[in-house]
């Protein structure tokens, strides 16, 4: 898998999911239609979004996606075309949600993240496990190996579905 495109630079730590999509837009029963509310009400983030047309990769600082568990944050990012988020650290729940929807959460050391923040675009190759910036700078990237298991099974839910007999046997034991 390969992701290439413009970068949306969000040089802030602790961007919580309320900032990604405020709760006032969580009034849906299906994920569709959330993209238009990405960063709604947040002038700074909206301004940056407007300045990065066609962005495919969001780059942020520490603890991205903290706060509320809302998977809507991942859905809204994806519906606006984002395929990867690069940050020095993610909240656990956001990380799980991103993996479960195929939005690649890429953890890099903060100095590498800063280099990405300064770059106009990037190219991520999950086969060669590398992130390449336009000036040729290349960083090694790693995804959680257990997530590859899910992919081989057809996704997280399919992986769990196949485990039902094992869970039933475990319960009976």
């Amino acid at each position, binding site marked *: 898998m390969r992701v290439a495109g413009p970068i949306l630079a969000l040089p*802030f*730590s*602790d961007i*919580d999911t*309320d*900032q990604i999509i*405020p*709760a*006032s837009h*969580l*009034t*849906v*029963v*299906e*994920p569709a239609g959330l993209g238009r509310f990405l960063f*709604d*009400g*947040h002038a*700074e983030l909206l301004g940056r979004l407007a300045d990065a047309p066609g962005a495919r990769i969001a780059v942020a600082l*520490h*603890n991205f996606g*903290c*706060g*509320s*568990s*809302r*998977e809507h944050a*991942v859905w809204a990012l994806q519906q606006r075309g984002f395929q990867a988020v690069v940050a020095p*650290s993610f*909240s*656990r*729940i956001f990380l*799980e*949600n991103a993996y*479960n*929807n195929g939005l690649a959460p890429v953890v890099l050391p903060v100095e590498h993240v800063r280099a990405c923040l300064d770059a106009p675009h990037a190219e991520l190759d999950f086969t060669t496990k590398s992130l390449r910036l336009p000036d040729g700078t290349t960083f090694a990237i790693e995804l*959680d*190996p*257990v997530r590859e*298991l*899910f992919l081989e099974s057809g996704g*997280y*839910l*399919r*992986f*769990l*579905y196949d*485990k*039902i007999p*094992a*869970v*039933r046997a*475990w*319960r009976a034991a």
Partner: protein
Amino acid sequence: MSGTYFDAVWDAHVVERLPDGNDLLAIDQVVAHEITTPPAIGQIEREFGGALFDASAIVAVNDHVSPAKDAATALQAQSLRTWAKRNEIPLYDVGDNGICHVLVPERGLVSPGTTVVCGDSHTCTLGAMGALAIGVGTTVQAGAMLAGCAVFKRPQVLEIRLHGRRARRTSAKDLALAYVRALGAGGGAGFALEFTGAALADLSVDERLTLCNMAVEAGATTAVVAPDAATAAYVRERGGDGDAAARWSRVDTSGARYARLLELDVASIEPAITWGTNPAQATSIGGTVPSDAPAEALAYMGLQAGQTLDGLEIDQVFIGSCTNSRLTDLRAAAEVFRGRRVRVPTIVTPGSQRVKREAEREGLHDVFQDAGALWTHSSCGPCLGMSMGVLAPGMRCVSTSNRNFPGRMGAGGRVHLASPVVAAASAVLGHIPGAAALETLLEEAVCA
């Protein structure tokens, strides 16, 4: 295995070890609310025919916007309702509901030693009951409903040892803000918090729920308090599994090895208030904004580095949320309100309809309303800016909730997190109190 209580419960639920420190955990219970559950129902019905692993292991609660505020939220509630009915899942609904993290313990629905997931980050609250309770997204919740299990990376265990005797003015909320501040907004990432120490005995189960509630604000996977006699009594009184409480209270943690230790002398912890845009950005009442505060936080909050919060004028007060809406919280706030009048719009929202009725039996609703505060039905309310009590840009609110991120209670709204006592004092003063003003209000409350 490192002999902690957390490890004992975790190990008792591992179905299968997976690569890179991940485990397939058996999940005993799923709590389902109307905001995050409907898309999970859709996933299970479309892709797997709708069958659930064990419908009797699910509790459904309409809680976030209940009753519905408009057609869209009505559809969410109705979606949960219809699905619950079809699958014979117990549903707590308008009139007999509450914030799920308040309702589930109060009805004896959570047992010590069990695993619980819910599509809500504050699920960690239930760790106060000795359960391993983990907040998750919609897909992980769907997985637990579909297959009775979930995959988590096993966290290390961080001990928060509480010792000393706290002052009367210091509440469980202040202890929560203290550990979040000490760890930082993401400093607990990769850890489960396990509270230990002699001071735990002085904390009621209600207060432990408050303490565990904010673990996620430090980025922790969850928090847990090993059950003791107080837990067992609390569970039994509510018709829950008292035997489980007794059994799990016998877990021997004397040889436990924790990956990290945070010691808190609760005697030295003062009432706290946040000044910034994440819950770790807190100071003591009477304190100042740090000189190295980030510029964007200061700009958002309309504050300056070094500025004192004492006397800062406010526009609204909210007392409620899954952090601070239980009977003990309402009693603490009422002490301050008794015989006084609020100077700013003040909303008091009980955490459940049961809490509401118990509070009314004690006459607390009269205290709040005599003071000029709004006494509402139970719901998540203003905490997440989704229904009533939303802030306008620039409005400043002292809130007993758990999040002060930009936009949390309304775009541009400024939130200062604090305890019920500090929030009530702010309401009657019309501004954030200093240490002396708070002490005076509390002393007069005792004399009254």
